[in-house]
């Protein structure tokens, strides 16, 4: 599985460490909350709400440089809009991958 990285954040910051820290802190703060809401909604099969959750998380996936995972998330979001949860396992693996990476920051 591809590894999350800070390449995009570093490129964006142009060496501005305060910005890097601020953005990473927001991700550290928001990602667990967004993941928890997603897990609750998918468990309750609230697909429309889950699609909204995936949409939000999708941006963070792209910020962390996960290009292939982003494609999976985009397809999963579309599936959820059609009331099916195909790609759920793949998406859950992406969440696990990010969760593990964020503990290293």
């Amino acid at each position, binding site marked *: 599985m591809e590894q999350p990285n800070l390449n*995009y954040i570093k490129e964006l*910051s142009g060496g501005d460490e305060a910005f890097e820290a601020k953005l990473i802190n*927001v991700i550290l703060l928001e990602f667990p909350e967004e993941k928890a809401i997603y897990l609750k909604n998918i468990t309750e099969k609230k697909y429309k709400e889950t699609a909204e959750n995936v949409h*939000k998380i999708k941006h963070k996936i792209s910020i962390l440089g996960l290009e292939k995972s982003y494609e999976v998330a985009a397809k999963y979001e579309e599936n959820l809009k059609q009331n099916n949860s195909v790609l759920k396992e793949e998406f859950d693996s992406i969440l696990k991958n990010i969760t593990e990476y964020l503990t290293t920051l």
Partner: protein
Amino acid sequence: MNCIIIDDETTARLIINQLCSQIDSLNVVAEFPNAIQAIKYLNQNDVDLIFLDIHMPDFTGFDFIQTLKNPPKIVLTTSDSNFAIEAFEYDCIVDYLVKPIVLPRFEKAITKAEKATVESTKALSKEITEGVSGNDLYINIDRRLIKLDIPSIYLIEAKGDYIHVKTEDKNYTVHSTLKKIEEKLPKEVFLKVHRSYIINVNKIIDIEDNSVLIKKDVIPVSRSNRPELMRRLNLL
């Protein structure tokens, strides 16, 4: 250019702010997590450019644009490339950025916004010097320039290469297009309700289903223009 950022995601607002900070001509004057707060701000303040997320809960970016009478230039920021076609329906949208946004692509969008601003300013100057003066509009009929009192115009109908302009006193047939005359008329008073008709909203007598009665003319209202017409009305 004074700009604002509208995005429900904190990360997105931070990133756009960071990108703006790398361009000297941009000055971020405010940020909003939803469109409603931005509308309140814009009722009191003018800005040159808006970075607008499309996908927001309750009130989307497109809903927001439809509330603006004279929208400034807008750069859409989104994680969905699916909305690109819809975006081209709005003249105020100068570019469409798909997240994650990188600096070179962002710079390109700003160049487009600056160019569009210059062109709008030129068009406005041209409008002032050609044809429109206060409440008057001059139309060219048989090499004569005839002055029309704009508020007296109640209906304009497209007929091939000509337009019929109906006023309180008289009707005129002019060799022009609906698009050209629409540009010369005050947007807050005149509204294109159908591809062949522009009406003076102040002259409406009644509205029924998909038509509007203006004087004795029953004018069709196309489905896509109906929401804007309804928005203009002072509904009880």
